[in-house]
Protein backbone atom coordinates (compact mmCIF):
# COMPACT_ATOMS: atom_id res chain seq x y z
CA UNK A 1 0.00 0.00 0.00
CA UNK A 2 2.80 2.43 0.84
CA UNK A 3 4.34 1.75 -2.57
CA UNK A 4 1.05 2.93 -4.07
CA UNK A 5 1.28 6.27 -2.26
CA UNK A 6 4.98 6.50 -3.05
CA UNK A 7 4.31 6.18 -6.80
CA UNK A 8 7.78 4.77 -7.42
CA UNK A 9 9.37 7.98 -6.19
CA UNK A 10 7.14 10.20 -8.35
CA UNK A 11 4.61 10.96 -5.59
CA UNK A 12 5.53 14.66 -5.52
CA UNK A 13 4.47 14.96 -9.18
CA UNK A 14 1.74 12.37 -9.69
CA UNK A 15 -0.46 13.29 -6.70
CA UNK A 16 -0.45 17.06 -7.24
CA UNK A 17 -1.31 16.47 -10.93
CA UNK A 18 -4.32 14.34 -9.95
CA UNK A 19 -5.29 16.80 -7.20
CA UNK A 20 -5.25 19.80 -9.54
CA UNK A 21 -7.25 17.99 -12.24
CA UNK A 22 -9.88 16.70 -9.83
CA UNK A 23 -10.12 20.14 -8.21
CA UNK A 24 -10.82 21.61 -11.65
CA UNK A 25 -13.49 18.94 -12.27
CA UNK A 26 -15.30 19.59 -8.99
CA UNK A 27 -14.94 23.38 -9.23
CA UNK A 28 -16.50 23.22 -12.70
CA UNK A 29 -19.52 21.37 -11.33
CA UNK A 30 -19.81 23.90 -8.50
CA UNK A 31 -19.33 26.97 -10.77
CA UNK A 32 -21.81 25.74 -13.40
CA UNK A 33 -24.52 25.11 -10.80
CA UNK A 34 -23.82 28.47 -9.15
CA UNK A 35 -24.04 30.28 -12.52
CA UNK A 36 -27.42 28.68 -13.23
CA UNK A 37 -28.73 29.46 -9.73
CA UNK A 38 -27.70 33.09 -10.13
CA UNK A 39 -29.39 33.41 -13.52
CA UNK A 40 -32.57 31.91 -12.13
CA UNK A 41 -32.54 34.27 -9.14
CA UNK A 42 -31.93 37.21 -11.48
CA UNK A 43 -34.80 36.14 -13.78
CA UNK A 44 -37.11 35.81 -10.78
CA UNK A 45 -36.10 39.28 -9.60
CA UNK A 46 -36.81 40.74 -13.05
CA UNK A 47 -40.26 39.17 -13.09
CA UNK A 48 -41.05 40.64 -9.69
CA UNK A 49 -39.83 44.08 -10.75
CA UNK A 50 -42.32 44.01 -13.60
CA UNK A 51 -45.00 43.84 -10.93
CA UNK A 52 -46.23 40.47 -12.05
CA UNK A 53 -47.67 38.11 -9.46
CA UNK A 54 -44.99 35.49 -8.78
Amino acid at each position, binding site marked *: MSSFFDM*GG*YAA*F*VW*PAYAVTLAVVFL*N*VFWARRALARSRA*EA*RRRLQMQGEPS
Partner: protein
Amino acid sequence: MAWTWFHRFGSPPHVYRLAARLTPWFAWPAALCIAAGLWGGLVLAPPDYQQGDGVRILYVHAPSAWMSLMVYTTMAVAAAIGLIWRIKVAHAVAASCAPIGASFTFAALVTGALWGEPMWGTYWEWDPRLTSELVLLFLYLGYMGLRAGIEDTQRADRASAVLAVVGVVNVPIIHYSVTWWNSLHQAPSVMRMDKPAMPPSMLLPLLLMLLGFTLLFVALLLVRLRGEVLARERAASWIREVVSV
Protein backbone atom coordinates in the same frame (compact mmCIF):
# COMPACT_ATOMS: atom_id res chain seq x y z
CA MET B 1 -39.39 18.58 -41.44
CA ALA B 2 -35.69 19.32 -41.14
CA TRP B 3 -36.50 23.00 -40.96
CA THR B 4 -38.79 22.68 -37.93
CA TRP B 5 -36.12 20.70 -36.15
CA PHE B 6 -33.60 23.45 -36.80
CA HIS B 7 -36.08 26.09 -35.71
CA ARG B 8 -36.79 24.30 -32.42
CA PHE B 9 -33.07 24.19 -31.71
CA GLY B 10 -32.98 27.96 -31.76
CA SER B 11 -36.06 28.33 -29.55
CA PRO B 12 -34.99 29.33 -26.00
CA PRO B 13 -37.80 27.63 -24.00
CA HIS B 14 -37.31 24.40 -25.93
CA VAL B 15 -33.54 24.53 -25.41
CA TYR B 16 -33.93 25.33 -21.70
CA ARG B 17 -36.23 22.38 -21.05
CA LEU B 18 -34.29 19.98 -23.26
CA ALA B 19 -31.00 20.93 -21.53
CA ALA B 20 -32.56 20.32 -18.10
CA ARG B 21 -33.85 16.91 -19.19
CA LEU B 22 -30.59 15.80 -20.83
CA THR B 23 -28.14 16.85 -18.08
CA PRO B 24 -28.34 13.68 -15.89
CA TRP B 25 -27.90 11.48 -18.96
CA PHE B 26 -24.44 12.98 -19.44
CA ALA B 27 -23.47 13.76 -15.85
CA TRP B 28 -23.84 10.25 -14.40
CA PRO B 29 -22.07 8.40 -17.23
CA ALA B 30 -19.34 11.04 -16.95
CA ALA B 31 -18.90 10.32 -13.23
CA LEU B 32 -18.78 6.56 -13.90
CA CYS B 33 -16.23 6.86 -16.72
CA ILE B 34 -13.98 9.20 -14.73
CA ALA B 35 -14.14 6.99 -11.61
CA ALA B 36 -13.30 3.89 -13.66
CA GLY B 37 -10.60 5.77 -15.58
CA LEU B 38 -8.96 6.97 -12.34
CA TRP B 39 -8.95 3.44 -10.94
CA GLY B 40 -7.50 2.12 -14.18
CA GLY B 41 -4.89 4.86 -14.46
CA LEU B 42 -3.72 4.83 -10.85
CA VAL B 43 -3.98 1.12 -10.05
CA LEU B 44 -4.47 -1.21 -13.02
CA ALA B 45 -2.26 0.39 -15.68
CA PRO B 46 1.38 -0.77 -15.63
CA PRO B 47 4.24 1.61 -14.85
CA ASP B 48 6.21 2.69 -17.92
CA TYR B 49 9.54 0.98 -18.55
CA GLN B 50 11.28 4.37 -18.73
CA GLN B 51 9.06 6.72 -16.72
CA GLY B 52 7.95 4.32 -13.99
CA ASP B 53 4.84 5.48 -12.15
CA GLY B 54 5.44 9.02 -13.40
CA VAL B 55 3.63 8.00 -16.58
CA ARG B 56 0.34 7.99 -14.64
CA ILE B 57 0.19 11.76 -15.09
CA LEU B 58 -0.84 10.86 -18.66
CA TYR B 59 -4.35 9.90 -17.49
CA VAL B 60 -5.12 13.40 -16.23
CA HIS B 61 -2.88 15.45 -18.52
CA ALA B 62 -4.04 14.17 -21.92
CA PRO B 63 -7.80 14.40 -21.10
CA SER B 64 -7.34 17.97 -19.79
CA ALA B 65 -5.43 18.96 -22.92
CA TRP B 66 -8.09 17.30 -25.09
CA MET B 67 -10.77 19.31 -23.25
CA SER B 68 -8.87 22.55 -23.79
CA LEU B 69 -8.93 22.04 -27.58
CA MET B 70 -12.36 20.40 -27.95
CA VAL B 71 -14.09 23.06 -25.86
CA TYR B 72 -12.40 25.87 -27.81
CA THR B 73 -13.44 24.34 -31.12
CA THR B 74 -17.03 24.01 -29.88
CA MET B 75 -16.94 27.61 -28.69
CA ALA B 76 -15.61 28.91 -32.03
CA VAL B 77 -18.15 26.94 -34.10
CA ALA B 78 -21.03 28.13 -31.87
CA ALA B 79 -19.74 31.72 -32.06
CA ALA B 80 -19.54 31.52 -35.87
CA ILE B 81 -23.10 30.16 -36.08
CA GLY B 82 -24.23 32.97 -33.78
CA LEU B 83 -22.52 35.59 -35.95
CA ILE B 84 -23.71 34.24 -39.30
CA TRP B 85 -27.31 33.29 -38.52
CA ARG B 86 -27.80 35.61 -35.54
CA ILE B 87 -28.98 32.79 -33.31
CA LYS B 88 -29.06 33.83 -29.65
CA VAL B 89 -28.82 30.25 -28.38
CA ALA B 90 -25.58 29.74 -30.35
CA HIS B 91 -24.04 32.75 -28.59
CA ALA B 92 -25.27 31.32 -25.28
CA VAL B 93 -23.45 28.05 -26.08
CA ALA B 94 -20.22 29.93 -26.87
CA ALA B 95 -20.40 31.97 -23.67
CA SER B 96 -21.00 28.77 -21.66
CA CYS B 97 -17.88 27.10 -23.09
CA ALA B 98 -15.30 29.71 -22.06
CA PRO B 99 -14.96 29.15 -18.28
CA ILE B 100 -14.98 25.37 -18.76
CA GLY B 101 -12.27 25.53 -21.41
CA ALA B 102 -10.14 28.01 -19.49
CA SER B 103 -10.09 25.86 -16.36
CA PHE B 104 -9.13 22.67 -18.21
CA THR B 105 -6.42 24.54 -20.14
CA PHE B 106 -5.05 25.57 -16.75
CA ALA B 107 -5.18 21.91 -15.62
CA ALA B 108 -3.38 20.80 -18.81
CA LEU B 109 -0.61 23.37 -18.24
CA VAL B 110 -0.14 22.52 -14.55
CA THR B 111 -0.18 18.73 -15.03
CA GLY B 112 2.18 19.20 -17.98
CA ALA B 113 4.58 21.16 -15.81
CA LEU B 114 4.41 18.46 -13.11
CA TRP B 115 5.21 15.87 -15.76
CA GLY B 116 7.93 17.97 -17.37
CA GLU B 117 10.02 18.46 -14.24
CA PRO B 118 10.83 14.77 -13.56
CA MET B 119 11.03 13.73 -17.26
CA TRP B 120 12.57 16.73 -19.03
CA GLY B 121 14.19 18.37 -16.02
CA THR B 122 12.13 21.55 -16.26
CA TYR B 123 8.64 22.73 -15.30
CA TRP B 124 8.50 25.12 -18.22
CA GLU B 125 10.18 25.67 -21.55
CA TRP B 126 9.26 28.16 -24.29
CA ASP B 127 8.57 25.24 -26.55
CA PRO B 128 6.03 25.43 -29.45
CA ARG B 129 3.50 23.07 -27.84
CA LEU B 130 3.73 24.64 -24.39
CA THR B 131 3.70 28.20 -25.67
CA SER B 132 0.72 27.68 -28.00
CA GLU B 133 -1.21 26.04 -25.15
CA LEU B 134 -0.45 29.06 -22.96
CA VAL B 135 -1.73 31.30 -25.78
CA LEU B 136 -4.95 29.23 -25.69
CA LEU B 137 -5.37 30.06 -21.99
CA PHE B 138 -4.94 33.76 -22.80
CA LEU B 139 -7.51 33.46 -25.62
CA TYR B 140 -10.05 32.03 -23.17
CA LEU B 141 -9.24 34.71 -20.58
CA GLY B 142 -9.38 37.44 -23.23
CA TYR B 143 -12.76 36.16 -24.38
CA MET B 144 -14.12 36.18 -20.83
CA GLY B 145 -12.59 39.58 -20.07
CA LEU B 146 -14.10 41.05 -23.23
CA ARG B 147 -17.55 39.72 -22.32
CA ALA B 148 -17.26 41.00 -18.76
CA GLY B 149 -16.29 44.43 -20.07
CA ILE B 150 -19.38 44.92 -22.25
CA GLU B 151 -22.63 45.62 -20.44
CA ASP B 152 -25.02 44.90 -23.32
CA THR B 153 -25.32 41.13 -23.84
CA GLN B 154 -25.95 41.34 -27.59
CA ARG B 155 -22.89 43.51 -28.19
CA ALA B 156 -20.83 41.30 -25.87
CA ASP B 157 -21.98 38.25 -27.85
CA ARG B 158 -20.94 39.70 -31.19
CA ALA B 159 -17.61 41.18 -30.09
CA SER B 160 -16.52 38.06 -28.19
CA ALA B 161 -17.66 35.82 -31.07
CA VAL B 162 -15.25 37.59 -33.43
CA LEU B 163 -12.40 36.97 -30.97
CA ALA B 164 -13.39 33.29 -30.58
CA VAL B 165 -13.51 32.75 -34.37
CA VAL B 166 -10.19 34.49 -35.05
CA GLY B 167 -8.51 32.61 -32.20
CA VAL B 168 -9.45 29.21 -33.63
CA VAL B 169 -6.32 29.30 -35.83
CA ASN B 170 -4.44 28.44 -32.64
CA VAL B 171 -6.15 25.03 -32.37
CA PRO B 172 -4.42 23.32 -35.34
CA ILE B 173 -1.19 25.09 -34.35
CA ILE B 174 -1.34 23.40 -30.92
CA HIS B 175 -2.27 20.03 -32.36
CA TYR B 176 0.40 19.96 -35.06
CA SER B 177 3.08 21.88 -33.12
CA VAL B 178 4.77 18.63 -32.13
CA THR B 179 5.08 17.48 -35.74
CA TRP B 180 5.79 20.85 -37.41
CA TRP B 181 8.56 21.89 -35.05
CA ASN B 182 11.22 20.07 -33.13
CA SER B 183 9.44 20.02 -29.77
CA LEU B 184 10.34 18.67 -26.35
CA HIS B 185 6.79 17.36 -26.21
CA GLN B 186 6.17 13.91 -27.64
CA ALA B 187 4.10 13.34 -30.79
CA PRO B 188 0.49 12.09 -30.49
CA SER B 189 0.16 8.48 -29.26
CA VAL B 190 -3.59 8.04 -29.69
CA MET B 191 -4.92 10.58 -32.20
CA ARG B 192 -2.84 9.52 -35.15
CA MET B 193 -3.39 7.82 -38.48
CA ASP B 194 -2.08 4.35 -37.64
CA LYS B 195 -3.09 2.45 -34.52
CA PRO B 196 -2.44 3.88 -31.03
CA ALA B 197 1.09 3.37 -29.70
CA MET B 198 0.27 1.85 -26.33
CA PRO B 199 -0.95 -1.46 -24.89
CA PRO B 200 -4.68 -1.90 -24.03
CA SER B 201 -3.92 -1.75 -20.28
CA MET B 202 -2.84 1.88 -20.77
CA LEU B 203 -5.15 2.75 -23.66
CA LEU B 204 -8.36 1.69 -21.93
CA PRO B 205 -8.05 3.93 -18.82
CA LEU B 206 -6.98 6.79 -21.09
CA LEU B 207 -9.99 6.33 -23.38
CA LEU B 208 -12.30 6.13 -20.32
CA MET B 209 -10.90 9.42 -19.03
CA LEU B 210 -11.22 11.06 -22.47
CA LEU B 211 -14.82 9.86 -22.78
CA GLY B 212 -15.61 10.84 -19.18
CA PHE B 213 -14.24 14.35 -19.62
CA THR B 214 -16.13 14.78 -22.91
CA LEU B 215 -19.41 13.69 -21.26
CA LEU B 216 -18.65 15.99 -18.32
CA PHE B 217 -18.18 18.87 -20.77
CA VAL B 218 -21.62 18.24 -22.30
CA ALA B 219 -23.23 18.09 -18.84
CA LEU B 220 -21.50 21.31 -17.69
CA LEU B 221 -22.40 22.99 -20.98
CA LEU B 222 -26.08 22.04 -20.57
CA VAL B 223 -26.21 23.47 -17.04
CA ARG B 224 -24.44 26.70 -18.00
CA LEU B 225 -26.45 27.02 -21.21
CA ARG B 226 -29.70 27.24 -19.23
CA GLY B 227 -28.31 30.16 -17.25
CA GLU B 228 -27.05 31.92 -20.38
CA VAL B 229 -30.39 31.41 -22.18
CA LEU B 230 -32.27 32.88 -19.20
CA ALA B 231 -29.97 35.90 -19.13
CA ARG B 232 -30.77 36.61 -22.80
CA GLU B 233 -34.54 36.48 -22.40
CA ARG B 234 -36.57 39.52 -21.44
CA ALA B 235 -40.08 39.13 -20.08
CA ALA B 236 -40.94 35.99 -21.97
CA SER B 237 -43.87 34.14 -20.45
CA TRP B 238 -42.07 30.78 -20.40
CA ILE B 239 -39.55 32.14 -17.90
CA ARG B 240 -42.17 32.33 -15.17
CA GLU B 241 -42.87 28.62 -15.59
CA VAL B 242 -39.25 27.54 -15.37
CA VAL B 243 -38.08 29.77 -12.49
CA SER B 244 -41.13 29.63 -10.21
CA VAL B 245 -40.34 27.47 -7.23
